[in-house]
């Protein structure tokens, strides 16, 4: 493997002419971009080798460089995407070098989002076909170039390990040796992809390509960028959302050794210094008086009440089957409850940061972003420059989880950099990072069901209110009061429910912004749905697994994962007192998943997740180790939210500040996790977030099994669970 740090392309001019992707439509309707082969002969040529498309470059020295349209934030995409290309290109992973894609919405848009972004667990779903096609097209051209050289038919040649062999004679030319010739050939108009039986890489465990620098301190994250002469800044933003700086006394701050400059913005103050230690010391010495604005009385309870009230009215109908009101009216048993989930911060381990160098007619940015083109666009607006005058260098990401789909950190850095001579790295303290996050929305659900004599659900009605992140982030995808994210996991359930209705009402909280948070819409919807089906099983006096299973005749993939998880978890086997098992089942992000959590509730109410058994059918597995790793990761992330996660507001400000008040599951609390994979040849499903949405209800259901207490509000309230 060649890995000497991951290069960042900032010269998007050389790529923009090789525009080969046909762009179309909006989000939510499947594959929106497709390879529009062939493209012009001149486009495939480059000065020193061969670049048949925006992802593959082969130099005359044989170096294979793959440009990554998705960003690496720990989810393994810098290994799995190269596997797709390498499978068809016939190179091994040790021969490739990776580059971050530059901002270019035309070349590098996510096919499932329509914009250049990595999120919603859809990199593999979007890349599955186009990336293999990109590799195959390049291989066909390289083989043709070698065949021409020898004057033989291409069908008598074979590509393997970065070289072409003429099978009858054993003659061999490396890709580097034929790269220049290949660049002059027409690009094939259609390519045939390998059948699954012929895969050499896909489905086999591949070592991650991004790791070696991450164990010796050489990997470069956004926060590690150090352009020559860079100063370090940290900032205080108005503690009350929407507030402004009223007065500032910076005398003390200016006296701190190493402090160079104080930058006053309308709603924030930054201290620029030689190092972050001096910047923080200077920040502490500032005397800022804030005009708190109109939100100084805002608290979480007010927001929750508003959402509660909203669910008494009618929302936009996301899905309707049969006649739900009539069916409930005629039901033998009726169950009606409400659920709520809190605001959550992302708390990526790498705090928010961005380095910016504002010059007279251009601006340069160093950042780790999940949406680099968005950063470029919004930084350009903040800088007052045309977009092509903003040069953006992307970096490895120290945790994304949706936080780095936002450009607020870049905007702040540009605002500050405009007043600073030379490059400035703006690093948020952890307190700023938590108190000025853009949060996972607070949602409130009012849900009801009717059961027949056998306890089987004949009606299901869910009306929920909360923020639509999509409406702000990708406005065209918010239509008629609905968006595809807010309702995922609440509609298209795996269960056979003859009368079914789900309504959503978008209600934005005052002042605070919401954002995507790992497992997005399903982070809330699966908690509600899978808690409620558990409640129905209880109302029907039936076992939670058996109750679900009886509703799965039309969804065999769901039934298979449920059966597998239950079997591996020892479902039904006796447990000690105050220990319980809880199950959850979902089909979100294109993958079926069941989890069984085993939870112990101490006499003081403390919740300990001891063991989690997960069964997944994610279609074709690309890198088996990534499947395991992502599910382990997602489960810890979701379990942290279920046990601890809550951002609350009081007097218009966030109450939590750092990891003492916004707690994380740590080594001593981490459950044992088993992941079992159902073999499948379906196209790959998403993985990065599935574990997170599924674990929350599994824990809540396990707590019920252990204590008889049904938690309808997350996180688990210890005071309700005392023995």
């Amino acid at each position, binding site marked *: 493997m060649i890995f000497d740090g991951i290069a960042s392309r900032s010269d998007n001019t050389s790529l923009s002419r090789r525009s080969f992707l046909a762009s179309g439509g909006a989000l939510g309707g499947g594959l929106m971009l497709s390879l529009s082969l062939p493209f012009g002969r001149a486009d495939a040529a480059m000065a020193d080798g061969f670049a048949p498309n925006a992802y593959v470059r082969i130099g005359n020295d044989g170096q294979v460089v793959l440009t990554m349209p998705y960003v690496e934030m*720990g989810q*393994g995409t810098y290994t799995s995407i190269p596997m797709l290309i390498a499978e068809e290109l016939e190179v091994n992973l040790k021969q490739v070098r990776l580059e971050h894609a530059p901002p270019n919405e035309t070349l590098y848009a996510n096919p499932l989002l329509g914009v250049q972004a990595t999120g919603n667990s859809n990199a593999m779903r979007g890349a599955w076909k186009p990336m293999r096609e990109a590799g195959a097209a390049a291989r066909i051209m390289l083989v043709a170039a070698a065949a021409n050289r020898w004057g033989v038919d291409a069908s008598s040649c074979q590509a393997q390990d970065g070289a072409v062999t003429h099978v009858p004679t054993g003659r061999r030319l490396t890709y580097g040796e034929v790269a220049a010739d290949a660049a002059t050939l027409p690009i094939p108009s259609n390519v045939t992809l390998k059948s699954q039986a012929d895969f050499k890489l896909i489905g086999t465990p591949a*070592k*991650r390509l991004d*790791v*070696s620098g*991450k*164990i*010796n*301190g*050489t*990997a*470069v994250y956004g*926060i*590690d960028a*150090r352009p020559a002469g860079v100063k*370090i800044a940290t900032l205080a933003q108005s503690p009350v959302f929407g507030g402004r700086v009223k007065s500032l006394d910076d005398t003390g701050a200016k006296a*701190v*050794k*190493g402090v160079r400059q104080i930058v006053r913005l309308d709603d924030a103050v930054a201290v620029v210094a*030689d*190092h*972050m*230690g*001096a910047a*923080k*010391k200077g920040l502490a010495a500032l005397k800022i008086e804030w005009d708190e604005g109109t939100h100084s009385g805002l608290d979480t309870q007010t927001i929750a009440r508003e959402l509660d009230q909203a669910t008494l009215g009618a929302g936009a109908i996301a899905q309707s089957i049969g006649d739900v009101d009539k069916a409930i009216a005629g039901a033998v048993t009726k169950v009606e409850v409400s659920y709520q989930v809190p605001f959550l911060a992302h*708390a*990526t*381990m*790498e*705090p928010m940061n961005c380095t910016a160098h504002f010059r007279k007619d251009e601006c340069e940015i160093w950042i780790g972003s999940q949406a680099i083109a968005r950063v470029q666009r919004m930084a350009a607006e903040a800088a007052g420059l045309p977009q092509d005058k903003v040069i953006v260098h992307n970096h*490895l*990401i*120290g*945790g*994304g*989880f949706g936080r780095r789909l936002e450009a607020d950190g870049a905007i702040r850095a540009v605002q500050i950099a405009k007043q600073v001579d030379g490059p400035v790295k703006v*690093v948020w*303290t*952890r307190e700023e990072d938590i108190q000025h996050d853009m949060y996972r929305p607070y949602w409130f659900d009012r849900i009801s069901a009717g059961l027949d004599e056998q306890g089987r659900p004949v009606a299901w009605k869910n009306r929920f209110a909360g923020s639509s992140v999509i409406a702000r982030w990708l406005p065209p995808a918010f239509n008629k009061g609905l968006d595809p994210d807010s309702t995922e996991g609440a509609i298209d359930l795996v269960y056979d429910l003859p009368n079914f209705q789900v309504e959503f009402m978008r209600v934005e909280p005052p002042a605070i912004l919401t954002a995507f948070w790992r497992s997005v819409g399903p982070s809330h919807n699966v908690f509600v749905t899978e808690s409620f089906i558990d409640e129905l099983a209880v109302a029907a006096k039936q076992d939670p697994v058996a109750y679900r299973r009886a509703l799965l005749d039309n969804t065999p993939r769901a039934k298979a994962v449920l059966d597998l998880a239950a079997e591996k978890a020892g479902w039904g086997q006796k447990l000690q007192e105050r220990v319980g098992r809880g199950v959850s089942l979902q089909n979100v992000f294109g993958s079926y998943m069941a989890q069984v959590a085993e939870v112990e509730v101490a006499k003081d109410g403390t919740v300990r997740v001891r063991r989690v058994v997960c069964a997944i059918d994610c279609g074709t597995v690309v890198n088996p180790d990534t499947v395991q*790793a992502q599910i*382990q*990761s*997602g*489960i*810890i*992330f979701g379990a*942290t939210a279920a046990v601890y996660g809550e951002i609350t507001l009081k007097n218009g400000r966030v109450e939590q500040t*750092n*990891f*003492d008040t916004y707690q*994380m*599951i*740590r*080594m*001593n609390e*981490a459950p*044992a*996790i088993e992941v079992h994979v159902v073999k499948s040849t379906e196209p790959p499903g998403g993985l990065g977030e599935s574990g997170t949405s599924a674990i929350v209800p599994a824990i809540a259901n396990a707590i019920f099994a252990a204590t008889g207490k049904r938690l309808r509000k997350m996180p688990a309230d210890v005071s309700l669970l005392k023995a």
Partner: protein
Amino acid sequence: MAFTINVNGQAQNVDVDGDAPLLWVLRDVLGMTGTKFGCGMALCGACTVHINGVATRSCITTIDSIEKAKITTIEAVGATPAGAQIQKAWLDHEVVQCGYCQSGQIMSASALLASKPQPTDADIDEAMSGNICRCGTYVRIREAIKLAAQANK
């Protein structure tokens, strides 16, 4: 004020206030960015270095408290036997995801292994619970420490 500190066997002269945290001297003054910032309050362990072999949170360690003590960072821990064993186990066991916290995890784990060649689960809990991993690599960290310890048998 001028201080001379010993980082990875080299004397480094820095001119900062005595209460400047070691973390920022390493990262911003000396340009050694392998040591990471996570919380600034010794709550997350991302900034862990060794001071005379002891895992120490550099974000709350002031420069004037170090004197002649030997500082080892992630950039050089691979030169110690325990550090090399831990790094190898991390690679072999594919521990890393986003990787941001792993400098600190590796520093904590290598200090543990150097002092306890055969750590128990309780030892691992005690040594590693100060290090947060938001990617949730705990399961693999535990396994990798045990894997590294096998080399000591």
